[in-house]
């Protein structure tokens, strides 16, 4: 199983600090513990061996050369009595024989070790009721006989409890634990502190980056100190400055381009106004039959194109208003049915030959800018009639939250590669294609109008045939001070 690292720098730092602190604590405690334990035990052991030796040396000379079991038992009892605070129990064995005394049993290993030599051996054992130190101490002959200094074959075994020492050692363990807790706490605190030191600049960088993302390109950070993060902060500031510069440049260029478009359309309007004022007169004379046919044709051409040009300029001005943010919503509660039918009626579109409407039966009142919705519907239906095939189906559904209007046609649909661009300004599916009726701005204007309503406008192809444009408008628009 893979251990998942906690996310984030701070928890990781804390974990790392705690791990290092715990490890060093463990090593220190283990070494200290081992050292102190063996020191305590060695001292106890040496003391016990020394005391036992003293007692044996003082009591053994009283034993007969060939002591009976009774002598040995008395000897062991005497030793027991002399144990003092050590509280040992002794037993005597002759030539590896059974133990005489109160020592209980001793291990064969200890017996084997002491059997032949004259060296003292000991072992520590863990017993059910505590730790024990067992000492095996051979007795040598004393006196001045020729046997003096040689092993007598008698071995005294002493068993003594190490409970006091155990208590000392466990106190040591407790002390080690008690020391570990503040050390770990200290590790956590210093980890948090270190994390803070590292993370504060990181957090500042993050906040600044978020600000820049949300558009505040003038965000800069204070450069304090001389570490790697300071360098990063400096680089960040440089980057922000570069971004701001480029952004300002792009904005200026875009604003210039837009202003140019607006200015051009505006300048074109005045001569167009003069021309438009007389197109009706031209039409009238051209159709009167009094002019030569060529002149009449020329006049009709001029007046038609003048009208188209006027429409185009109108659309350009409209787009410029959107670009300048000067377009405002004038909301009204209107009947959806009325809005749709007025749009069809004004354009002279016939039901159901050209347009089929499927509206909700309860005729909901919708809160929209009726003039703008009229533009959207007219542009979508006009587009469908031009590029699709009649009849166009307009289907509206209203829920509590939104109003959805589909405008679908029966035509060939929109080619896949054109679909993402249908709302682009002046987008022509085929560059070589003849100029269409519209200005090339109709769908872009429709999109802007829907956006102004905080709605969405999407284009798609129907599974079988034809294209469908879907308007989704929220029904919760509010505007103060409108009747």
């Amino acid at each position, binding site marked *: 199983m893979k251990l998942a690292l906690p996310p984030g720098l701070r928890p990781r730092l804390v974990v790392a600090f705690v791990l290092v602190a715990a490890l060093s604590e463990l090593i220190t405690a283990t070494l200290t513990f081992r050292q102190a334990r063996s020191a305590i035990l060695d001292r106890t052991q040496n003391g016990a061996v020394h005391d036992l030796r003293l007692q044996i040396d003082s009591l053994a000379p009283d034993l007969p050369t060939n002591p009976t079991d009774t002598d040995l038992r008395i000897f062991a009892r005497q030793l027991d009595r002399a144990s003092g605070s050590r509280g040992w129990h002794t037993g005597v064995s002759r030539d590896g024989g059974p133990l005489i005394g109160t020592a209980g049993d001793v291990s064969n290993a200890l017996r084997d070790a002491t059997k032949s030599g004259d060296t003292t051996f000991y072992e520590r054992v863990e017993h059910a009721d505590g730790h024990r130190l067992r000492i095996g101490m051979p007795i040598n002959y004393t006196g001045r006989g020729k046997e003096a200094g040689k092993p007598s074959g008698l071995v005294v075994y002493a068993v003594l409890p190490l409970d006091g020492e155990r208590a000392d050692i466990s106190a040591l363990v407790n002390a080690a634990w008690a020391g570990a807790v503040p050390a770990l706490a200290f590790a956590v605190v210093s980890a948090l502190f270190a994390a803070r030191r590292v993370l504060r600049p990181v957090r500042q960088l993050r906040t600044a980056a978020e600000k820049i993302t949300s558009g505040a390109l003038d965000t800069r950070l204070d450069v304090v100190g001389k570490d790697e993060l300071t360098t990063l902060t400096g680089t960040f500031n440089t980057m922000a400055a570069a971004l701001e510069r480029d952004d300002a440049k792009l904005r200026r260029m875009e604003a210039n381009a837009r202003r140019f478009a*607006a200015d051009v*359309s*505006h300048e074109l*309007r*005045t*001569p*167009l*106004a*003069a*021309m*438009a*004022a*007389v*197109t*009706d*007169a031209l039409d*009238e004379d051209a159709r009167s039959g009094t002019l030569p046919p060529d002149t009449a044709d020329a006049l009709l051409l001029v007046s038609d194109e003048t*009208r188209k040009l*006027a429409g185009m*300029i109108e659309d350009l*001005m409209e787009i*410029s*208003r959107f670009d300048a943010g*000067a377009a*405002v919503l*004038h909301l*009204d*509660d*209107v009947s959806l049915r*009325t809005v749709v039918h*007025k*749009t069809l009626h*004004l354009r002279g579109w016939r039901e159901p030959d050209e347009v089929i409407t499927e509206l909700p039966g309860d005729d909901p009142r919708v*809160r929209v800018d*009726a*003039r703008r919705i*009229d533009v959207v519907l007219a542009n979508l239906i006009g587009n469908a009639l031009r590029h699709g095939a009649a009849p166009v189906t307009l289907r509206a559904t209203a829920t509590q939250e939104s109003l959805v209007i589909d405008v679908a046609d029966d035509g060939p649909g929109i080619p896949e590669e054109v679909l993402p661009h249908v709302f682009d300004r002046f987008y022509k599916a085929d560059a070589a294609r003849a100029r269409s009726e519209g200005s090339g701005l109709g769908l872009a204007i429709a999109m802007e109008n829907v956006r102004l309503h905080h709605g969405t406008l999407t284009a798609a192809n129907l599974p079988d045939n034809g294209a469908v444009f879907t308007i989704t408008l929220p029904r919760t628009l509010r505007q103060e001070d*409108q*009747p």
Partner: protein
Amino acid sequence: MTRVLLIEDDPAVRRGVVLGLSRNGHETEAVGTGEDGLDALVAFKPDLVLLDLMLPGMSGLEVCRRIRETSRVPLVILSARGDDIDVVIGLEAGADDYVVKPAGAAVIEARMRAVLRRVAPVQTGTGTGAGPTQVGDLEIDRDALIVRKHGEELPLAPSELKLLLFLSAAPERTFSRQQLLEDVWEHSYYGDARLVDACVMRLRAKIEEDPRRPAYVQTVRGFGYRFGPLPA
């Protein structure tokens, strides 16, 4: 035949509009500045003024205000500007309607006709000849087309008068702004509703005691306007 005063600084537009107007049988006096326009207003005595907003010297808005100080002549703004704010200010200054340039002669003609028609289409059940009706402090005389307040005749511009007559013919009935646009201004359903708002504002300034708390022309939020009911 209508006597039209055209105040327009661009010579080409002036020529074009004059040509279009005279084709429709109107007698037109065209001037290039606001000052000349104010002079011509007295000398030419037009039945209707077509006013460009962008004028050298005295602005179109100022001309609009000056004309309204002395005259109730129907006033239509010719606006070449895209920014609608000027149109709104012009309407608030007392213009009755506006036409956005470029506009064909037919469009201008239609707007002129609508403004010149002295009364709105009569609503069902309100015949003429009933004599003046008294509503609160207002006395509305549908035959003489005169509105008096405390016995004093109010100088209402044509659109204001038409709107008041239309609304007061059906007291307490609410009309949407689209409906008012169609019936009073003869615009399409999708005309500029600000025409209505600006006209209501001007009308209230003239007939209401407190235009901020109107008693005669009341706002029905979300629906439109209605005449009355007067507070008891």
